[in-house]
């Protein structure tokens, strides 16, 4: 009787032991599965974060420079469309690669025009590879100014909304970017070849004279904006000569000082 009781206890305890061990192993397996799933999700989010930070930190800044320089170059080479102001056309070109003329859109530079929208289309497949969709992308030109005789500074506010394909994460960002664009290498605006020293073979080159200050020349943006006119010894001349290059020769001869930024009141 005693032996049977003993055997019964042993059987029970061995069954319990097996049950406990299999429960622990089962729990461990499910914890491992959850951990792997969590690790994979965080790995996916980390990869996507990498892409998003590259997009925000580097891509937007670079496309601002490239689009800005491209569009300034297009306007310098072809001129601002007749009846349109630079301030009206440039922001539209920068964003869309086209501008509105009445009820129609006029494209500049064809389908390869390097506008923000062009670059949005370029980055879209790359982001999709990482499982990110561009839900919204918008840009607004805040400021454009002549930074130095050879650089134009652009300030743009970018807004974007990116979403993970699996709806695990989303990025809603708004960031201000600045780019200082070198105008060296762009063609001179037609009919404004005033800066003879700095203009070789149809293109702007760096001024070889380090003493030449910016106020001796009309700024690049002033030329593009079509405000026109050259301030010669305090007198603003809107239309100069048939051959504006003469101005530079005259400066040497008459020792007059030419500045840009025409004062409208003194226009003759």
């Amino acid at each position, binding site marked *: 009787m005693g032996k049977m009781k003993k055997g019964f206890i042993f059987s029970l305890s061995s069954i319990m032991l097996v049950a406990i061990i299999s429960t622990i192993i089962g729990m461990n397996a499910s914890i491992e599965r959850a951990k792997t799933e969590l690790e994979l999700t965080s790995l996916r989010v980390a990869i996507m974060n*990498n892409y998003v930070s590259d997009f925000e930190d*580097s891509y937007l800044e670079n496309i601002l420079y490239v689009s800005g320089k*491209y569009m300034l*170059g297009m306007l310098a080479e072809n001129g601002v469309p007749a009846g349109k102001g630079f301030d009206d056309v440039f922001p539209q070109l920068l964003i869309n690669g086209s501008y509105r003329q009445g009820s129609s859109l006029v494209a500049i530079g064809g389908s390869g025009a390097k506008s923000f929208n062009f670059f949005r289309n370029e980055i879209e497949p*790359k*982001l999709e590879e990482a499982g990110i969709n561009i839900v919204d992308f918008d840009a607004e030109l805040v400021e454009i100014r002549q930074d130095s005789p050879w650089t134009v500074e652009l300030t743009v506010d970018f807004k974007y909304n990116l979403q993970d394909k699996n709806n695990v994460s989303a990025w809603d960002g708004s960031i201000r970017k600045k780019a200082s664009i070198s105008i060296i290498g762009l063609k001179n605006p037609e009919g404004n070849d005033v800066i003879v020293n700095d203009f070789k073979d149809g293109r702007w080159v760096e001024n070889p004279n380090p003493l030449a200050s910016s106020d001796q020349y009309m700024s690049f943006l002033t030329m593009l904006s079509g405000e026109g006119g050259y301030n010669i010894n305090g007198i603003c001349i809107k239309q100069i000569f048939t051959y504006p290059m003469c101005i530079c020769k005259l400066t040497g001869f008459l020792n007059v000082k030419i500045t840009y930024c025409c004062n409208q009141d003194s226009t003759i």
Partner: protein
Amino acid sequence: MKNKKGYYLVIDSLIAIAILSIGIFLIRGSLANSPSQIQGENLAHDTLSFLASAKVSDFCDFELSICWGPLTNLEIPKNRNNSLLGYIGELKKNGRQGSITDLIENSVANSHILNQNFNFTFMLDGSLFYPRGITKPEDINGYKSSPLVSSSSRIIFGHYDDQLPSDPFIQFENWGPYTAEARVWAK
């Protein structure tokens, strides 16, 4: 007689405990030595971060037109502000595939960035640039059988002004966006 039996049982249980402890110790020890996922991810991430943060201007004297270190014998970068990763984009734009492999070899593979337990591949837009002479990572010895493969990717995009000595015109060029990917796997 009963005492002797008890004595045997105690010794038996002690031997069993010793065997179990040694087993557990060995299993835990082998787990500690196996490469972890985090380690692989960090290495892949660090490799790309190094390439993205090291500047070409640290390895070149642009006035003298000479470069050293990982850029030895490579053409002078056109954008002085570029990182090594940006320079790789510039090389791809200009069709200098071999130079990309040289740069990766000199900067990552031959340096001590990678742990010796790991191997590494570098890809740009899905094309393999390191190791040399192989087109798919799967063809590399040990890749398929590796217990651990980690990867890190970055988007690269850039621009440069190009002026030939004989030509006063300056060409403005941009390249990308390309996807640069570093894959790290345990040997």
